[in-house]
């Protein structure tokens, strides 16, 4: 039990719905209380599609046999459906309701047997990313079939699901670069994927994993079952992108010179990030500090690009994704001295307040803390609080140029000294041991406020040190 000023990850059902809504011909039935609805509203904002989200809500309470009837009704109402996936909300999971045995009618569209993906592994404590990952794996396991490898080299691209701004553009950018190498895209997963696409996955020569939060388990399964190699480097920044393209070249037996030609021409034409780095005077970056917090892929990919390609000091980097902690710490070591995992946005906010960086790269949950400290803020990690009409990738060489623009926008600003005099005094005020102990006892999300109030009060009193009494007084 903990007091939280916010949460990053949604429930497991949110992850399953994201995967289902990304794909085509898959209808999701959310077993939940009628008051747990929100998905259609959010989906509308992101997709701006003409059609509503392929999600039906099956209310838990009341009618026995309700789930069976609701699944059948959903299938009837959506004749395009080829598979039904079941997501259960926390309330449904906690109620201990069993998944019923259901035999579904044949798909009216293809005449094939319609399957129910039960997601029996769903647990109340599971986060949305882990659930999305497992849902995709279950879908792949259900539909994949042995295939001959395609004659010319192709790969599958596993990218982000819906709600990631620019997801569509991300896939297109990667397809463009692969096309330049002469490598086709066999299937892109999960955005726009059909069940036929899932069946044909083993035709490809390799799997490119852009967003491992969601595609990790599925590509591991394909590796074990069909011997398909996978490429897991985040395709962010020019260096990351080049790295992925070279591995694709090797796996697809392309001539090294050919890959190099593509990389060079793209570096010259599209990827403006290395240019931008070389145009900057060293003084412009001196003393500029960035912090990064968010998911796994973006925190790692952007951390590399910022620290290695631009030469910005990354004071710390972190992720909300506890289940990827080991991997994150391993990768983050390459670009920052301090890496950590936290699940409370308030903890991240108080770290931002302590560090006072020049640039904060994060999810929208970090925006307020960034603004409070006068730092520039780049909302480059999902989730975002805006779904722009222009889709811009962050992956690939085009993505590197997008990143260069974003950085230029914030680094061009003269270095802001946030209330410089105040800042000095604030830092100069020491805390007594006892006061610090008391401060530690205050819940994390209130600590920042308590600290500021106490420091303010101490300055009012002209005290040389913040004592336990001043802290008490300031809080009440």
């Amino acid at each position: 039990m903990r007091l939280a000023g916010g949460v990053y990850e949604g429930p497991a059902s949110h992850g399953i719905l994201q995967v289902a809504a990304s794909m085509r011909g898959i209808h999701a039935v959310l077993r939940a209380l009628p008051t747990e609805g929100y998905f259609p509203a959010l989906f509308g904002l992101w997709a701006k599609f003409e059609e509503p989200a392929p999600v039906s809500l099956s209310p838990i309470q009341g009618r026995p046999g309700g789930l069976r009837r609701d699944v059948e009704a959903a299938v009837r109402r959506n004749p395009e459906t080829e598979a039904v996936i079941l997501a259960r909300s926390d309330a449904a999971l906690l109620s201990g309701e069993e998944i019923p045995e259901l035999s579904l009618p044949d798909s009216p569209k293809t005449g094939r047997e319609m399957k129910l993906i039960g997601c029996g592994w769903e647990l109340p404590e599971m986060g949305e990313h882990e659930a999305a990952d497992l849902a995709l794996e279950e879908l792949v396991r259900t539909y994949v079939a042995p295939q001959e490898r395609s004659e010319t080299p192709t790969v599958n691209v596993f990218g982000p699901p819906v709600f990631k701004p620019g997801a569509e553009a991300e896939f297109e950018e990667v397809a463009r670069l692969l096309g330049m190498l002469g490598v086709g895209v066999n299937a892109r997963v999960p955005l726009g994927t059909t069940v036929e696409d899932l069946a044909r996955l083993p035709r490809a020569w390799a799997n490119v994993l852009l967003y491992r939060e969601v595609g990790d388990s599925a590509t591991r399964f394909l590796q074990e079952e069909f011997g398909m190699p996978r490429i897991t480097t985040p395709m962010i920044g020019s260096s990351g992108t080049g790295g992925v393209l070279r591995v694709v070249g090797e796996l697809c037996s392309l001539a090294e010179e050919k890959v190099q030609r593509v990389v060079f021409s793209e570096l010259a034409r599209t990827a403006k990030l290395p240019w931008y780095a070389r145009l900057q005077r060293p003084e412009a970056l001196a003393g500029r500090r960035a912090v990064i917090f968010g998911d796994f892929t973006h925190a790692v990919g952007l951390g590399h690009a910022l620290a290695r390609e631009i030469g910005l000091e990354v004071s710390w980097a972190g992720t909300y994704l506890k289940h990827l902690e080991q991997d994150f710490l391993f990768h983050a070591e390459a670009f920052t001295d301090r890496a950590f995992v936290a699940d409370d946005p308030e903890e991240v906010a108080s770290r931002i307040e302590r560090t006072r960086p020049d640039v904060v790269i994060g999810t929208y949950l970090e925006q307020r803390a960034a603004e409070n400290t006068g730092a520039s803020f780049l909302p480059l990690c999902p989730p975002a609080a805006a779904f722009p009409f222009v889709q811009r990738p962050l992956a690939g060489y085009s993505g590197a140029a997008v990143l260069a623009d974003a950085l230029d926008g914030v680094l061009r600003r003269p270095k802001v000294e946030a209330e410089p005099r105040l800042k000095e005094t604030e830092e100069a005020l020491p805390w007594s041991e006892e006061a610090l102990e008391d401060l530690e006892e205050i819940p994390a999300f209130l600590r920042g406020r308590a600290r500021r109030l106490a420091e303010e009060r101490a300055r009012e009193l002209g005290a040389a040190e913040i004592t336990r009494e001043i802290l008490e007084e300031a809080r009440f």
Partner: protein
Amino acid sequence: MTVLDESGVPDVLSPLYSLNGLAEKLPDVLLILVGTRAEAYLAQTLPGMISGDISLNPHFSALVLDPEENVQQGQVASRVIEAAAGFPEVTAVLLVAGRSAELLGVDANFEVQLAERRLGLPVRAVDYDPARDGALSTDLEDGILSALVDVCPDTSPRMLELPPPAKGRSGFIGNLLGRGRSESREVRRRQVVILGASSPPGAWRELAAELDQIGIEVVGNIPGTGASGLPAVGQGMVAAVADPYLIASSRAVTERGARVLRTLMPIGVNGTARFLQDIAIAFGLKANQLNRARSVWENLEPLRNRIRGKRIFFAGDTGLELPLARFLVDAGAVVLEVGVPRLDRSFLAAEVQALGTDVDVVESPDPRGQMERIDRSQPDVVVASPGLYVPLVARGHLCRLALDFLEAGIHGYEGARRILELFVRTFERAEALDSVKL
């Protein structure tokens, strides 16, 4: 009027979605949600993604329960005390505990009693039952108001006989009404409490001024501006309900011994007139609003001309649909369908009766079915539920979000004007956009 129960799953946003906004309305109340991470996500993270407004009110936080962990009695109370300690300005704490908290072993009533004893502040559990059939997005507001009713100071008939203390609890409204009026005891005793949350403070002040005109004092609003300004509620008091979804809170007021008037909601011209008139009758006054209503209608004539004959479809979300539809029919619009996620026929008897015979009400509408009906009937404007808004706009329908009416201040005579203006602005904008050659 025909009522059709479609038994669909209504397209509403989770009531938890509005918790942060409610904290904004109650600056001296600490709201704590006790539930799973999923519920905290619905209340804290999704609103930012959907509305783009990223600010979270510090007076709202979530106590996230771990489903693996056994909750010990008193644990929740300790956390509540910890959280309240950070806010000296807080005068009451409301604990919102849903079904999952109960399933995970939280006894909300025990915890609030413990926290109240230790904090010395009123601490209440908000009765919020997410399993209730046919939920409205405004249900939590009702639960919070009824918890606040419980925080209201008690009153006895004897207290009413006494002159009010020099510095009363009635705050701004009391001062406004006290000015220039004869201070006779009789006038002071005609006091009413208004229950209503869906309009900003300005609309309530206007309504209080109308009541003042007929010699009735509004001693307070629930929720008004928070816990410290709540009026006394008890025997001998008269209360009037201004929002159609405040079922639990009006029951709570009745249970305190106050008299709750059953009348139309003060929404629209005729609704406001009936509301004022019925309050007057409750105090034995004759206050004919006929002339007042007639002159308001005359003033609204130019706006009415713009919406006369327009065909309007209510998809249903907030629970304000019935009175809004009633007013629009009065104003000359054609209401094709009123979707209501829930219809309490006895609570809304007056509204149902006033709606007239030509309007179809669909209870628990099925959103997909509604989309088909909207495509068939091509209304001039759809008051859309949150999930239908984007798909309907994409199909070329003119839409207004039901939530927009919660911000507009729809109560009272001036509110009637604002409702019409909201529609007229919608039409004007559509005409302006349509006139551009693309």
